[in-house]
């Protein structure tokens, strides 16, 4: 008699424990699946960001940046003036286009800030430094600066150049 009672109790304990573990497992699998999806989107965004930075910075160096102009209407446009040409970087809420190549943000809640920051800094008598930062917002907050698009350029003052000294977003 006693032995039978223990078996039912054991069965109940077994079912309860297995249910708890299975529930935990399902919860973990769902959260891991979400992390995996987020990571895939973040990774795709990171690849796009790297390609974009490489394309723009290569042009800065090869075509020689001589000036720029920032214009904000519905979207924001940065016009880069090179020695013999110009190219536009168009920033919209969820996509960015440079030289007719568009990259779209995939991460959930991610948008570009349409107010980039820009600085012209004099390094010494001969050289200047240009810094442009296009923030990437997650749910309207700039949580991680590593996700931003950061562009840098050092040029010679004596060469032809036409830069605004600063930029205030309207």
């Amino acid at each position, binding site marked *: 008699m006693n*032995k*039978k009672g*223990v*078996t039912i109790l*054991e*069965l109940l*304990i*077994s079912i309860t*424990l*297995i249910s708890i*573990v*299975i529930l*935990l*497992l399902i919860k*973990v*699998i769902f959260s*891991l699946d979400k*992390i*995996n999806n987020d*990571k895939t989107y*973040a*990774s795709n965004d*990171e690849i796009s*960001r*790297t390609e974009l*930075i*490489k394309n723009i*910075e290569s042009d800065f160096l090869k075509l020689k940046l001589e000036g720029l102009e920032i214009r904000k209407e519905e979207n924001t446009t940065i016009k880069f003036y090179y020695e013999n040409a110009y190219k536009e970087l168009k920033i919209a809420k969820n996509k960015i286009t440079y030289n007719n190549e568009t990259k779209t943000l995939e991460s959930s809640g991610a948008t570009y800030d349409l107010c980039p920051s820009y*600085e012209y*800094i004099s*390094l*010494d008598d001969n*050289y200047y*430094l240009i*810094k442009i930062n296009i923030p990437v917002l997650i749910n309207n907050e700039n949580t*991680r*600066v*590593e*996700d931003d*698009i*950061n*562009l*840098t*350029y*050092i040029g010679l003052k004596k060469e032809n150049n036409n830069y605004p000294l600063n930029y205030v977003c309207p």
Partner: protein
Amino acid sequence: MKKGFALLETLIVITFLIVSLLLLYGTFSNMLSNSKKNILYDNASNIYKAYYVKEYLNLGSLQDIETNDIREITCNEINISGCDTLLNELEIKKLYIANINLKEYDKEKYTSSLNNYLDTLSNNSNNKYRLILEFNNQDILAFASIEIGDIYE
């Protein structure tokens, strides 16, 4: 006899499930830490910053820096007036010159973040040194490096 095994069997199953969970978690945490490395180590904009620092500070010609391991360099050693401004504007906290074939060095002299970054670098190159930049932005340390030596000149 058989009836008494229910609890033991359950415990075995639970142990198996927990081990599987831990393995799964371990795999994912590895993936997450790799993705962190992708962002903090050698990201595109920091590599371009390293290139500009190397060019502006004329570090490509620093062949007389004899170091078998790694050493920090400061603006005082580099006689270029805009050095401090440049490092400050690019949020560069420290500059190091390291031997490409960095094998044994005094790890205790450097932070664990730098040591972890150095562990990821390849020593397969014809150049002799590399310039390493340590960025400090919102208390997050990021690193980037660029080789210096004859090939780039």
